[in-house]
C-alpha cells in the first residue's frame, strides 16, 4: 500500500470488518459442530482465512459480482447471503444458493478453478454493456495449477476485462503444500504469463486485502484491465470436516501460524487504538452467537424441499419426457 487507505483510519469501519470476521469464525465453529453431530454435510472451514474473505468482499460494490470457490463464507455473508442460506447449502439444500441479497453472485464452485472462466464471462458482460462493474473471482493456491484458471486469466488479459482474481493462498491443497504445487516462487508472478500485473499481499491483514482489492477493482471498472492478487494466509483447520490433516502435517508445522491469525491481529490493533474493550468483545460474541444460534434453529426447523423440486429446475419448462418421469416418481413416492 503506497498510502494508508482512508477506511483504515476510521475505527467504526475497522470494527465493521472485525465484526464480519468474528461472524465468519462463529459461523464456522457452529457449522463444524453441526457436521460433527450429523446435522450438516461435509463442510469447508475458513478458520484463519477470514481476512481474505471479508477483505475482498468489503472492497466490492454491491453491483459487482462475486464468483467464489467454496471457502468464502466470510465474503458471502458480507455480501448479504444469510447464515441460514449457507447452512442450507452445506446441509444439502439447493435453496442455500438463492442469495436473495446478492442476486447475481455465483454459487460456490466445487470443481476447483472451473469458475475462473465464468468470472471472465461476467466481466465481459459488464464490458460489452459498458457498465462500471467488476467481477471478483476467488480460489485457492491449488487452483492456480488448473488450466481453466490459466485460460481465463489469459483471456481477461488480452480483452482487458474488469475482473479481479484473488488467490486465497492458505498454503495447502488438501495434503499438498503449495511448494509441491508449483515451482513458481510466488503465485503472484503467474499473471506475468498473461501480461497482467500480479501482487502478493498479507492475507491476514484485512486492511491490506481490502485496500489492494479495492484499488484493483477501481482500476478494472475504469477499463484498466484485470487484477491478480495473491493473498498469503494459512489453513489452520482440516481441509474439510471429511479431512484429517494430522495424516500429512503436524502441529509443529501449523501452530506458528496461529500467531498471525487475522482476527486476533485486528482485535489487538483495535484494543491498541482504544476502540475495543473486553465488554465490546463479550457483547459482540454474545450477539453473533445468538444470531447464528437462531439461524441454526431456523435451519433445523426448515423442512426439506418437496421431492418434486428435483425435477422442476432442470429446464425452464419441464419437457414432456421429463414430466412423465416426474409423474411416475411422485406416483411411486405417494
Amino acid at each position: 500500500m503506497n498510502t494508508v487507505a482512508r477506511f483504515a483510519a476510521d475505527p467504526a469501519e475497522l470494527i465493521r470488518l472485525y465484526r464480519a470476521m468474528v461472524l465468519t469464525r462463529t459461523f464456522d465453529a457452529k457449522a463444524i459442530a453441526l457436521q460433527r453431530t450429523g446435522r450438516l454435510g461435509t463442510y469447508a472451514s475458513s478458520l484463519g482465512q477470514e481476512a481474505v474473505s471479508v477483505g475482498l468482499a468489503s472492497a466490492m460494490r454491491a453491483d459487482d459480482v462475486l464468483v467464489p470457490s467454496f471457502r468464502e463464507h466470510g465474503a458471502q455473508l458480507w455480501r448479504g447471503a444469510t447464515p441460514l442460506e449457507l447452512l442450507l447449502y452445506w446441509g444439502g439444500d439447493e435453496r442455500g444458493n438463492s442469495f436473495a441479497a446478492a442476486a447475481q453472485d455465483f454459487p460456490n464452485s466445487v470443481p476447483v478453478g472451473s469458475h475462473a472462466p465464468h468470472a471472465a464471462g461476467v466481466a465481459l458482460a459488464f464490458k460489452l454493456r459498458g457498465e462500471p462493474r467488476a467481477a471478483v473471482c476467488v480460489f485457492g493456491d491449488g487452483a492456480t495449477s488448473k488450466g481453466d484458471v490459466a485460460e481465463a486469466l489469459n483471456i481477461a488479459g488480452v480483452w482487458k476485462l474488469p475482473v479481479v482474481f484473488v488467490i486465497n493462498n492458505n498454503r495447502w491443497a488438501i495434503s499438498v503444500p503449495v511448494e509441491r504445487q508449483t515451482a513458481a516462487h510466488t503465485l503472484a508472478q503467474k499473471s506475468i504469463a498473461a501480461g497482467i500485473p500480479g501482487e502478493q499481499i498479507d492475507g491476514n491483514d484485512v486492511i491490506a486485502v481490502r485496500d489492494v482489492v479495492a484499488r484493483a477493482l477501481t482500476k478494472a471498472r475504469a477499463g484498466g484491465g484485470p487484477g491478480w492478487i495473491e493473498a498469503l494466509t494459512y489453513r489452520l483447520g482440516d481441509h474439510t470436516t471429511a479431512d484429517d490433516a494430522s495424516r500429512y502435517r503436524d502441529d509443529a508445522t501449523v501452530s506458528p501460524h496461529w500467531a498471525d491469525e487475522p482476527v486476533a491481529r485486528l482485535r489487538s490493533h483495535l484494543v491498541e487504538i482504544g476502540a475495543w474493550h473486553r465488554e465490546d468483545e463479550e457483547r459482540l460474541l454474545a450477539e453473533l452467537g445468538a444470531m447464528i444460534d437462531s439461524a441454526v434453529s431456523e435451519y433445523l426447523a426448515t423442512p426439506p424441499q418437496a421431492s418434486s423440486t428435483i425435477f422442476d429446475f432442470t429446464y425452464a419448462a419441464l419437457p414432456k419426457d421429463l414430466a412423465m418421469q416426474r409423474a411416475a416418481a411422485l406416483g411411486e413416492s405417494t
Partner: protein
Amino acid sequence: MTEITLVQAVNLALARAMEADRSVVVLGEDVGKDGGVFRATDGLLARFGEARVLDTPLAEAAIAGLSVGLAAQGFRPVAEIQFTGFIYPAIDQMVNHASRLRTRTRGRLTCPMVLRSPCGGGIHAPEHHSESPEAMFAHVPGLRVVIPSSPARAYGLLLAAIRDPDPVVFLEPTRLYRAVKEDVADDGQALPLDRAFVLRDGTDLTLVTWGAMVTETLAAADTLAAEGVDSEVIDLATLKPLDADTLLASVTKTGRCVIVHEAPLTGGFGAEVAARLAERALTSLLAPIERVTGYDIVMPLPRLEHHDMPGEARILAAARRALAYQ
C-alpha cells in the same frame, strides 16, 4: 426465398437472431474476420461489430466457461467449437456448470447459451475432425442436443436454440454443410425443440436417424419404395429431450424399426431409441430392432473412413432383414 446451403442457413439464422436481439453474441476461434473455418459466421463481424462477434484465444474450456458467465448475465452467447474433436475440453463446463446452473440456484441464475460445433465424418478431414459425440451430451440432464439435417431445419432449429432459456449443444454435420441447397425463408420462424421430423410417411418400416445419415437413409427409403416397400423416415433432430411419442406412433404402426447413426454402436444414442421401443412398443414389434451405426472403433483416417460410416447398402441390408423377419 432463396436457395441456400445448410451452412448458409446457419449463417442466416445467426444474423437474424443477432438482428432481433442485442443480447445475442457470437464467440469462438476464427469466427470474426475469417468468418469461421466453414464460413458459418461469415459477414457477422462486418455487420455487428467486434463487440458482438468475438474471436477468442485458442481455449475451448474457456469458450464454454465464458459463455456460462455471459449467459448468467443475461446475454445469449452462441459459442462455436471449431470441430467436435475439440469439444471434449468443454464438456466439464457443460456438465458441471451450464447444465445445472439453473437447478443449483433454484432458477436464480440461468444459462441460455448455444454451443455450436461441426460434427461427423465423410469430408476426408484430418484426424479428430470427424467425431460424432452427440450421445455424450444427450446423457447430460439440463442440456438440449440438436442436430439439423437440412438448411430449413438448421435455420429454424438454430433460431429456437438461441431463443431457448437453457443450454443447447447444436451439432452441424459438416458433410451436409454444402451438400444440398433449398429454399429457406428468412422469416424468423423457429422450429420446436421437442419434435422429431417425419420426413417420409410409411407403413411397412420405420427408419430412425439424424444428422448426415438422413441422406443415406432417405436414399435407402427410395430404393425400398421402388421395391414396393413403404418406409417411414424419422429425423430425430432434437435428441434431447427425446420426442418419444413420434417414435412410438411410427413403430406402433409399422412394427419394424431400423436405427441409423454415424457414431459408434455401443452407447450411441440409437441405444436409447431402441430401449424406448423395447419398453413401450414391445408388443407392436414384428422384428428385432436393428441398429446400423459406426462400429465400436476410432474413426479411421480418411482413406478408410467410408468402411466405418454407414451407407445405403448397410441400411438396406438391415431393412431387408427387418422386413423379412417373420
